[in-house]
């Protein structure tokens, strides 16, 4: 009998779930339609979207960076500072020290790796809560960046980087976007189609269970933190390429939006899990809103309200859809 009940219930549940999975995408399409109706010429053209795709690529990469340790159960608040560090490493070594750009990019990624290792050392081996450690390393890195750059913006980064990031275009969209896209594809492959992804998930959801099932929990956590360091350093490289300069201050401003996108992304595609496509959709959903609103000439404070409101609303709806069952995120 129980069986029968279960079978009868199934379609209803799946219908709900399907709706939840695509809800944010639908809302995205709706706001595109609305802005498009108001500004058919300026908003609804490929140029507008292609630019939006490219200019939010660093933010998208940062959101991707965050969800790796989040899935494994650790918060990495240091991604914003790592982005700054990486782009300033590029600025200092390329512009001031005159090192070739390719080497410098590698060194920037290496810096991200080192940050990840430092975080991991304190989080995994000393067992300090991740929030505390990454709060601390954020402050540390901010100091180091100020020392390194003399607190000044460094312009004149090698044009090769700029060309590689925003110079070339494919279907009218600058390359920057495709880097983020490739990262999302790779990450969603790892998350969903490799044993590593499963291990990450298990470590995040039940550390002791994972350990007793032969998963090297510490190694997975270290790996996740290092990955987050390297990916946010890559976001820093993209950022330097998009700007053509290195700014010692801007990274931290991307921290809260990136977290917001990660959480918002966890309400869509695979609701209840941090997932790369969800994060990407969330970043560009918010970007679309901001772009549309600014094109309408609406004051910028509205975009803050939009960001906050969209996050709370989306998570609320997602929560209500799932009948207030305890959420896995956060």
């Amino acid at each position: 009998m129980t069986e029968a009940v279960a079978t009868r219930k199934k379609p209803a549940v799946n219908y709900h779930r399907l709706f939840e999975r695509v809800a944010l995408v639908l809302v995205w399409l709706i706001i595109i339609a609305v802005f498009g109706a108001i500004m058919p010429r300026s908003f609804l053209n490929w140029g507008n979207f292609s630019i939006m795709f490219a200019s939010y690529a660093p933010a998208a990469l940062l959101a991707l960076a965050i969800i790796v340790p989040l899935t494994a159960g650790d918060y990495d608040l240091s991604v914003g500072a790592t982005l700054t560090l990486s782009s300033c490493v590029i600025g200092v070594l390329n512009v001031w020290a005159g090192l070739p750009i390719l080497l410098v990019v590698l060194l920037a990624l290496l810096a991200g790796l080192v940050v990840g290792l430092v975080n991991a050392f304190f989080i995994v081996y000393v067992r300090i809560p991740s929030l505390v450690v990454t709060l601390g390393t954020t402050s540390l890195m901010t100091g180091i960046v100020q020392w390194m750059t003399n607190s000044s913006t460094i312009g004149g980064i090698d044009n090769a980087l700029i060309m590689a990031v925003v110079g070339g275009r494919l279907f009218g969209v600058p390359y920057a976007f495709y880097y983020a896209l490739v990262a999302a594809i790779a990450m969603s492959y790892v998350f969903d189609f490799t044993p590593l992804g499963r291990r990450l998930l298990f470590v995040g959801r039940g550390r002791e269970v994972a350990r007793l099932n032969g998963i090297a929990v510490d190694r997975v956590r270290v790996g996740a933190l290092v990955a987050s360091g390297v990916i946010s350093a890559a976001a820093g490289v993209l950022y330097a390429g998009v700007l053509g300069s290195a700014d010692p201050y801007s990274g931290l401003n991307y921290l809260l939006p990136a977290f917001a996108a990660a959480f918002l992304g966890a309400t869509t595609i695979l609701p209840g899990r941090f997932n790369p496509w969800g994060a990407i959709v969330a970043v560009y959903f918010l970007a679309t809103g901001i772009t549309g609103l600014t094109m309408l000439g609406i004051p910028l404070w509205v975009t803050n309200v939009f960001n906050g409101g969209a996050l709370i609303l989306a998570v609320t709806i997602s929560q209500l859809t799932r009948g207030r069952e305890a959420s896995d995120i956060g």
Partner: protein
Amino acid sequence: MSFGDGEGALTARSEGSASRTGLPPVLRLRNVAKTFGGAVALGGVSLDVAAGEVHGLLGKNGSGKSTLVKILAGFHAPDPGSSMEVDGQPVALPLKPGDFRRLGMSFVHQNLGLIPSLTVLENLRLSALTSPGRAWIDWKAERSAAREALETFGLRLDILERVDRLSPVNRALLAIVRAFEDIRSGLEGSGRPGLVLLDEPTPFLPREGVEKLFGLVRSISDRGSSVVFISHDIDEVMAITDRVTVLRDGHVAGSLVTKDASHDAVVQLIVGRELARSAPARTARKVERPVRAVIEGVEGPRLAPCSVTIAQGEILGLTGLIGSGYEELAYLVFGATRAAGGTLALDGAEPLELPAMTPRRAIDRGLALLPGDRQNASGVDSLSLLDNMFLPDVDRFFRRGLLDHRAMRQEAEALGKAFEVRPNDPIQKLSALSGGNAQKVLIARWMNRKPSLLLLDEPTQGVDVGTRQQIFAALRAAAADGMSVICASSDAEQLAEICDRVLIFARGRIVKELVGAEITKDRIAEATYASLDGMGALPPDERPEDEMQ
């Protein structure tokens, strides 16, 4: 009075203290129902608990016992239509948090209801420390009250110790002391007898602890308070209760007066059918079999170096009083707890150093461990059955660079069917399954790997009688195919049913080995207690510090 000075087997409840007639029932429930998002946990339960009565509440896993208890604690809100009376006075449902105190109830919850990261003092005095209406906490008074309470119950604990540093036994005792202490102080305050609800308090307790608990139960029921006692151990229930109510699928299946009922009648009421107890075919297996594993000198926090050999296809039981170290062996061998020393040789191969053992290595060598702590160590509630089933060997499905989700799903479905998991939907979260079904999934996880040596810790704790038989059958079948099993359990009945050989532990050492026809429930129990006596001859300062003190 102390939990420590236990004596022999459970004694049957004496006559005379039975329910006092004339008084209204302490607790009267009518049509109490609870639905969790469509799933019916309780389908309208009516129940009376008389004053001074010890009332057994029985039923298979998931039959709704704990749900009922949690409704009384104000944790769950029952569905509309439920009604409740206490001492003849109607009480508005749902209960608000803390109402139960006003109504004279106290609880030992199934998971004890303690907060691990806080101190003994804070947990013990929880209700006093958190009850509103006091402007000021007098810590000195609280400390002495806590010491006094522990003293009264003969429990010697540092009141500033964190609860997570206590042994499971002491944790259980702490919860019990708290419940009885609350009732006692309630009785002193209002003079009104109360109601203690004990939701499976005994699995953590050694025999003498159980005996002591029963002493407490009797003493408060003699003074007119009532007790609701939940357990899967029929013998305990027969020993302590005046009356039992059996739940089945959220409904009352029946009610019996204990002294008029037989053991089998109770079992039948619980399961809903007669249970054929299969006699283990031990005699036929007396032939010499090749050795599967030689464990030499394994040593752990509570286990003195000891050696164990197990043959292919053998089911080896480990038991003893809690704290005697038997429960550690499986974890040490598997590398879940780091061993201080010892080696493991499998199938005649080079011995492996146990201190260097990790779960990964153990799994790679064909070992499997099913921990006793299902919630925290065994399965992940928020993930699907499928994920839980293939946790140790997802790699197997990694083909041509992709995880083969289809194959996983098919295999999970087949596996679920084989182990009679209900409902058998591999995509569903583990949390959607009842405890017993979750345990089946987790056993299936390991059995599916066809391990050469399966290590089990309390495999059927909190599992109902029917499911138990299924699990036993599966184990026996696998053993017949050559799998060796080490099963640590405090449940003599279970060991008697499945084991070819049983080792009795005391104070970290193997003190006795039972084989063949010696393996009966009574012999195991007897040997367990005899083990303690044997140690009584030791000089006092070499007395091991067992949990009970």
